[in-house]
């Protein structure tokens, strides 16, 4: 089985480019609580990195550190090789954060106009409005917008300055399917123009659809890192469902099998690769039936990873 270290220390990346944002050995404490624990995270130019993790895992804290909105308790934070708070970095960075309250009496176009004025070469307001899908809402006051529309305004404020590096903290929360796909397309367009994106998400499908690299965080610790495909391979690569008379212990001993559970009279086998397991199944039980092979979704991979992490913690 491929070890966690093998993935963490993978030498070459699919996109070899300069590092634009980096957390090195970063820990962050809030009083007695430790939000991040010795985290290393790197974002290279032109890539989309998805930080994936459950609530309270430390995703937002990582983003705030990279934006210079909080200072690390230990370790260093670097953006474009400098402190994230330098004026130059602020000009080259855009951020979408989870904001509890935006001034509700200002119009969409007024908010965009204000934020655009902060940057050196902002996008034309019309372009920002179009990219965020806000056409026709320019003169609406923020307070009367729906949740999804508000989210799109925050996206518009992040991109209006045409920044090189974008931090998107749960960008598609509260969006319907159509709006989410539109935002994905927009993020892909930004990357095609050479922008670098770090996003955090609860939507595992989102990480799968957008990211070149996924960083899984749980309890403030990075527990896995790799391409979406690698993350899937790292855990349950394939799932085989079948009905067999073989005892569960025998199935568990097949090569590459990681987990077997019984489900309504059938076995659900998680394995790195399906074929060797199938060969053993046919050899041991010629009457094996109802075989279904599926690839594990990122969701299963994610759950398995966080479960691994927790069981390790219990042992240690």
């Amino acid at each position, binding site marked *: 089985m491929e070890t966690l270290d093998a993935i963490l220390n993978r030498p070459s990346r699919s996109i070899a480019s300069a590092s*634009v944002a980096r957390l090195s050995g970063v820990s962050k404490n809030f009083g007695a609580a430790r939000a991040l624990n010795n985290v290393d995270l790197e974002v290279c*130019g032109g890539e989309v990195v998805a930080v994936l993790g459950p609530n309270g895992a430390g995703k*937002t804290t990582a983003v705030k550190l990279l934006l210079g909105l*909080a*200072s690390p308790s230990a370790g260093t934070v670097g953006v474009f*090789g400098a402190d994230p708070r330098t004026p130059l970095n602020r000009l080259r960075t855009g*951020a979408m954060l989870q904001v509890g*309250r*935006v001034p509700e*009496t200002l119009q969409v176009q007024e908010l965009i106009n204000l934020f655009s004025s902060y940057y050196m070469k902002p996008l034309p307001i019309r372009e920002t409005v179009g990219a965020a899908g806000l056409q026709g809402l320019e003169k609406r006051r923020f307070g009367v917008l729906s949740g999804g529309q508000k989210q799109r305004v925050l996206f518009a404020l992040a991109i209006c300055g045409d920044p090189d590096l974008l931090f998107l903290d749960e960008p598609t929360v509260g969006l319907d399917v159509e709006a989410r796909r539109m935002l994905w397309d927009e993020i892909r367009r930004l990357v095609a123009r050479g922008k670098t994106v770090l996003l955090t998400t609860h939507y595992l499908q989102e990480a799968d659809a957008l990211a070149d690299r996924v960083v899984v965080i749980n309890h403030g610790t990075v527990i896995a890192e790799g391409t979406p495909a690698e993350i899937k391979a790292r855990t349950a690569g394939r799932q085989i469902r079948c009905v067999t008379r073989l005892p569960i212990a025998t199935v568990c001993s097949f090569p590459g099998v990681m987990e077997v559970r019984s489900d309504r009279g059938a076995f659900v086998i998680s394995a790195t690769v399906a074929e060797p397991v199938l060969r053993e199944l046919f050899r041991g039980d010629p009457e094996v039936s109802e075989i279904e092979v599926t690839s594990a979704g990122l969701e299963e991979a994610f759950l398995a990873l966080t479960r691994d992490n927790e069981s390790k913690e219990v042992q240690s």
Partner: protein
Amino acid sequence: MSAASATLPRAAMERSFSHTLTIYVKETKYEFLKLLRLPTYSVSIILFPVMFYVLFGLLLNRGKEADGVSVAAYLMASYGTFGVMGASLFAFGVGVAGERGLGWLQLKRATPMPPFAYFLAKTLVCMAFSFIIVLLLLTLGISFGGVHLAFAQAARLVATLVVGAGVFCAMGLAIGYFAGPTSAAAVVNLTYLPLSFASGLWIPVDMLPSFLQRVAPFLPPYHLGRLALGNVGVGRGGSSFEHWEALMGFAFICLGIARLGFQRDEGKSYG
């Protein structure tokens, strides 16, 4: 791509003076529009002093005197002080607490906005609302209260109160950095109303209970009140220097407290 842009010439990223000015102007303009369109702010901070003045200054105490001037003149200055205090404390105290506590200020800090623009815009907007309030009271007093002021006197009254508003912006900022987004309005009301009363802004200080008369000189609104009253002929001849001194001292203490809150925020995350 990013390797190339990482070495962009620094000059290309330096703002011109006119660009910086544009940011300050827009920040101020939108801050003003934001509050003007918020009736809970704009209507209440203007309506309360004006309503009190019409009631107590123009209708109920017609022809009476206080401290050697007509009640209409006295209350024009003291409700003016009350008004600018409210405009500043609510805009800063409630505004900053909400924007800081609920993430808006953080989002702005992540942008290249000069941080000072945020605070200066709020201060200028408080002064603008203060100007509106004082001008309304002045118009009412002169038109319906028989108040006679030379133009220079009236201008000095307005200037005193508009500049004095800055002191309460500092106080509001301190509140905004320590009160929560939901509790800020209560904190402001609980300081604003008792302070106004004890400083003699509703009824003249020498008509207050004697222990409050001794407390009043320690309260900042008392000093701004005395300065404003000086412009309508109360306590003429006294030095205004000590009052400005007290106000400046208080403003610096508030800014110091706000600074502590600002530094605390650096190491902490909200929302």
